[in-house]
């Protein structure tokens, strides 16, 4: 099948699973069967005891050239969607149509046999993934070079490091010519330089005119790769739209923090507003908190704190408080407080969090709402902090006479 013919359509897809152990012995299965015959389905949801819906009426299509990102907490149903897409499982109800050859960047070394050599495994894994032998032979050198394991092709894979195995597996999968591409958390394979190469290769594949599905907890990967996104929670679509909209819903919404704004402190944070949801790296971001002090509150002022948390690794990259900035929070009534931040950070998505801090008790007295900001563009750099570096080149003549040896 040639390029551009791939197509994905989920039509009202439901998938049911069982909790706990499935019956692997006849001795367990016969009583279970008897219970089913005597027992009764819950009339409302068509479930037997111990069953649950992993997907509840999923409906979407992906056209060639579109890349759909799936996000959501653990147990949302993302992996189930992938298993249905790759035809490993069948829906309990509804239809999943996937047209064309599926290239799956999922558990890329699953077909490797430890006793076989690298060469033998490339053919085995390639064929398992649906590549004709002819094509594997043709692209063999390319695959091996990409993985960087040329010297070990006649060594059994069991003597490879886990990184080498993963790299070889990824290289094979990345050289499929799929009509539909499915990517699941494989962007964390190998060392930093391989990850960069892998990501570039994935971007190349995604730009081809094929439908793509990406599942990742690295939310920046979703914003960079995907044209749209869907937020799943407990088998349902909670939000759908641009990747940014879904990520905001995910990070700020119920999905990630079931208690959005809670606490028994005197200072209540009612809202958190950002001057912009997208800023350039190095630009200024204004965070406004609307607060109210509860009546019969307090005598000792509390502190308001804000933090910027990277969504790629969950680390707090910056945190400050009204105290540290030399302001005092009023002791009564409603007020707003503005924090100005200069976003000297790596590009990526950051969650801006806020809370009130009770100094007397040394505890968080109120957890406020959160919002995310997408930091993009700016001067490229690596590391965590942007130090506004400059580089100046001067001709060697200017430093002649100093102790450095003359350049010639």
């Amino acid at each position: 099948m040639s390029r551009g013919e791939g197509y994905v359509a989920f039509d009202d897809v439901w998938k049911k699973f069982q909790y706990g152990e499935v019956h692997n012995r006849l001795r367990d299965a016969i009583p279970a069967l008897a219970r089913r015959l005597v027992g009764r389905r819950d009339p409302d949801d068509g479930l037997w005891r111990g069953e649950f819906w992993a997907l509840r009426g999923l409906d979407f299509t992906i056209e060639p050239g579109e890349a759909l990102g799936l996000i959501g907490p653990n147990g949302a149903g993302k992996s189930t969607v992938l298993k249905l897409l790759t035809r490993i499982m069948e829906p309990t109800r509804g239809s999943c149509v996937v047209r064309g050859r599926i290239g799956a960047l999922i558990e890329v070394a699953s077909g490797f046999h430890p006793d076989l050599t690298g060469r033998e495994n490339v053919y085995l894994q390639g064929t398992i993934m649906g590549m004709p032998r002819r094509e594997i032979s043709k692209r063999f050198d390319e695959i091996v070079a990409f993985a960087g394991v040329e010297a070990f092709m006649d060594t059994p894979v069991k003597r490879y490091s886990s990184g080498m195995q993963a790299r070889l597996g990824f290289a094979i999968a990345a050289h499929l010519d799929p009509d539909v591409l499915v990517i699941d958390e494989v962007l964390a394979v190998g060392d930093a330089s391989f990850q960069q190469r892998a990501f570039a290769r994935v971007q190349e594949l995604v730009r081809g005119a094929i439908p793509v599905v990406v599942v990742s907890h690295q939310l920046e990967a979703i914003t960079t790769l995907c044209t749209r996104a869907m937020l799943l929670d407990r088998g349902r679509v909670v939000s759908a739209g641009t990747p940014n909209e879904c990520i905001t819903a995910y990070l700020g919404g119920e999905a990630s923090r079931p208690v959005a704004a809670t606490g028994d402190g005197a200072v209540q944070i009612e809202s958190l507003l950002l001057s912009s949801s997208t800023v350039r790296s190095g630009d200024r971001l204004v965070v406004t908190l609307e607060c109210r002090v509860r009546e019969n509150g307090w005598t000792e002022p509390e502190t308001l704190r804000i933090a910027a948390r990277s969504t790629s690794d969950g680390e707090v990259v910056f945190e400050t408080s009204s105290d540290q900035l030399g302001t005092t929070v009023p002791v009564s009534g409603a007020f707003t407080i503005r924090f100005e931040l200069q976003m000297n950070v790596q590009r990526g998505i950051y969650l801006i969090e806020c809370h009130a801090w009770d100094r007397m008790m040394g505890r968080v007295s109120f957890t406020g709402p959160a919002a995310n900001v997408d930091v993009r563009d700016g001067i490229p750099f690596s590391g965590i902090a942007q130090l506004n570096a400059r580089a100046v080149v001067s001709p060697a003549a200017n430093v002649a006479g100093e102790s450095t040896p003359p350049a010639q």
Partner: protein
Amino acid sequence: MHLARQVHLSYYDKAQNAPHRPPTGRRVSRVESRRPGSSLAQVVRDIVQYRELLYELTLRDLRIRYKQSVMGVLWAILTPLVVVLAGAIIRWAFASLVGRTVAPIELAALAVKSIGWSFFVGGLGFGTASLTANFPLVTKVYFPRELLPISAVLTQAVDSAVGAAAILIVFPLYGLGHASGLPWIFLLVGLLVAFTTAVSMLSACANVFFRDAKHIVQLVTSFGIFFTPVFFDLDAFGPAGARTFSLNPLTPILEGARLALVTGHDLREPLISASGAVVWAPSHLLYASVWALGGLIVSVIIFRRASGKFAEYV
């Protein structure tokens, strides 16, 4: 870094407005699922389409079977040879009771049947474990699951072919065997492969859901030889014994191979022993064919129906 953002909101509205009511029993009957067709023709088409994978899986199994072993492919001859030796000892014990010796033709019969029996036992054992042993594949990658038990049986077939080749070399050297039986052998080998595949597919499938299957297969492979005429020929039993043993689908296949190749009997003719036991009747061939081909059809259909659940249970 920006890709063109094109947002489709049609599903968005649907998702918001859909009544989140799970399906009722009535609607389940109208499932339009992408379940692969379970017809025999579809299965054959799938296997033909994935023939390269079948080849790779078989090659893999053959490679790992003999990698890191000193004897290597000699094991393929040694295993049936041990069965022959065991049979020879039993025959020798019985022969010495009645004061005669074991004739070379009896050893030849043993050799032919041992190869057939080892193929069945090996294929069944290997095939039964094929789905559970490959669970990383079954839970991660799609391909027709039939390939796993079939490649297991094929691997065993290649293995047994080495033993069969040894027979083809050794027999003429000792003036044993009848070339006229060879066409029958081809037919019987076909039936044996079909029957072994059928049983392996069913037991592999059962083993996914109930690990009891493994124990049942172990019983069959250890003790089945006492219920199959391998060490003895059918005429060693009386008429009633021969009738009972003939119910075993492997009996006509192994006996037929012995009669055609070692005795030189024309399988179109019946053969009745001195004791009146029916050692061979043309209907035996029909009986074995029904088991082999009927079994294959039934097992393919059952396997395909069940294969959608493998990933959840394996």
